[in-house]
Structures are given as C-alpha cells and as structure tokens.
C-alpha cells in the first residue's frame, strides 16, 4: 500500500524533505512507517520514543494500522507557546 509520510521541524531538516511517498506492506503500522524512515535517514533514530505520530491529522498510537492512501505524520517534541 501507499502512504504519505509527513515530517516536521528538525525531523524535516534531518530527512531533507517535508513529505515522502512510500510503499509499505499491507497491515503495516505507524511504527513500521517510522522504522522504514529511520532506516533511510539514520539521523532520525536517536529520537526513539520521544517522537509522536498522527494519522490523517489526528494523534495516533504507533500501533495504529495504516491503510492505503493514509497520511502519517511524525512529530518531534513540541515547543509552542
């Protein structure tokens, strides 16, 4: 299946892209998408469990199963305000 991966703030800088299109196996989870991205961009791996994720513009767990056409976003620790 095909998913869109969105990266923000320093994650985007490390990967050099705000948005990536990737093929993942059926029943892949947000965790699988993150693992695929960190294999591609090892500089992201140090974020470990400090990264949050969102699927289709809602906060989600890394165990969330993705579907064809989903948008999964990875968020470094936030600093608004």
């Amino acid at each position, binding site marked *: 299946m095909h998913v869109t991966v969105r990266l923000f703030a320093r994650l985007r800088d490390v990967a050099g892209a705000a948005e990536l299109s990737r093929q993942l196996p059926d029943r892949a989870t947000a965790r699988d998408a993150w693992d695929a991205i960190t294999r591609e961009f090892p500089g992201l791996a140090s974020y470990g469990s400090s990264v949050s994720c969102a699927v289709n513009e809602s*906060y989600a767990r890394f165990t969330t199963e993705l579907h064809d056409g989903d948008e999964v976003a990875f968020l470094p620790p936030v600093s608004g*305000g």
Partner: protein
Amino acid sequence: MAVRFLITDDPLDAAAISGLVATAGDGAVATFVGLVRDHNVGRRVLWLDYEAYAPLALKAFEQIADEAQASWPGVRLAIHHRTGRLEIGEASVVIVAASAHRGEAFAVCRYAIERVKQIAPIWKHEHFDGGEQWIEGATADPADETARALALERACT
C-alpha cells in the same frame, strides 16, 4: 477572523480575540500573551521561526477547550497561535478565557497555556547570535494523564 481557535501567519490582536469569547454574563476576562524574548539559556536570540501542523494543532486547541470545559463549566476559551518569522517583542500566542468570575478565568488561561506547551504540534526554530536550533520540549501525548494533572495543578495554585 472570528474563530476561537486559529493558526495564522498574521500578527495577533489580543483585544480582538477577547471580543470573541466575552459575553454579557462575563465579569472576568483573563488574557495570556506569549512574547518572543531576546534571550534563551544564555544565548542572544535574534528572531524565532514558528512552524505548526495546523490541522492537528487546531484539534489540540479544541481538546484543550473541552478539557477546560469539563473542569470549569461555563468558561469560554480562545487560542490563537502565530507561525512564521517573529521578531523580538512580537506575540506568538494569545489565550483568552472569559468567565462570570475571575478565579475560573485565571485558572483556565493558565491551564490552556500549559496544555498548549504539552500537546500542540508547534515548534520554535531559534535564530540566535552564532547559530540556529530547533527547540524541542515535551513529547506530545494528548492521552498522558500525568501531564494533564500537572497542568491542572499549575492552574489551581
């Protein structure tokens, strides 16, 4: 611009935002304005670039308002956050809480800024004298009850 929750590149007007939530039954409006300051951990800050995941940030603001409504029924809240390049002294965030009485207005205002800092998908890119750096604070987890309890505690002291 008459919406209670907003992410915008445009300058924020605290007075206009308070007009969005205050009603004839309100005796108190508490406003928090976050400003870009010229120093951070010993560095001389030149400007900040704010980035947001806007659709998710708006949902986070709505969640914060729902949480506030559950703890302080009847209080109305507006949260506007700016994005893009902000100079020293400019407002990055305006939070307005309106209530019949001052206690609830102050509490909700404080609660909301604590929660914004915990769960809103917004980031500061600090440009300082000598370099630049993304600021990374809290790992955003809207379901983290420990973080929510901390925000409640700060709001009530």
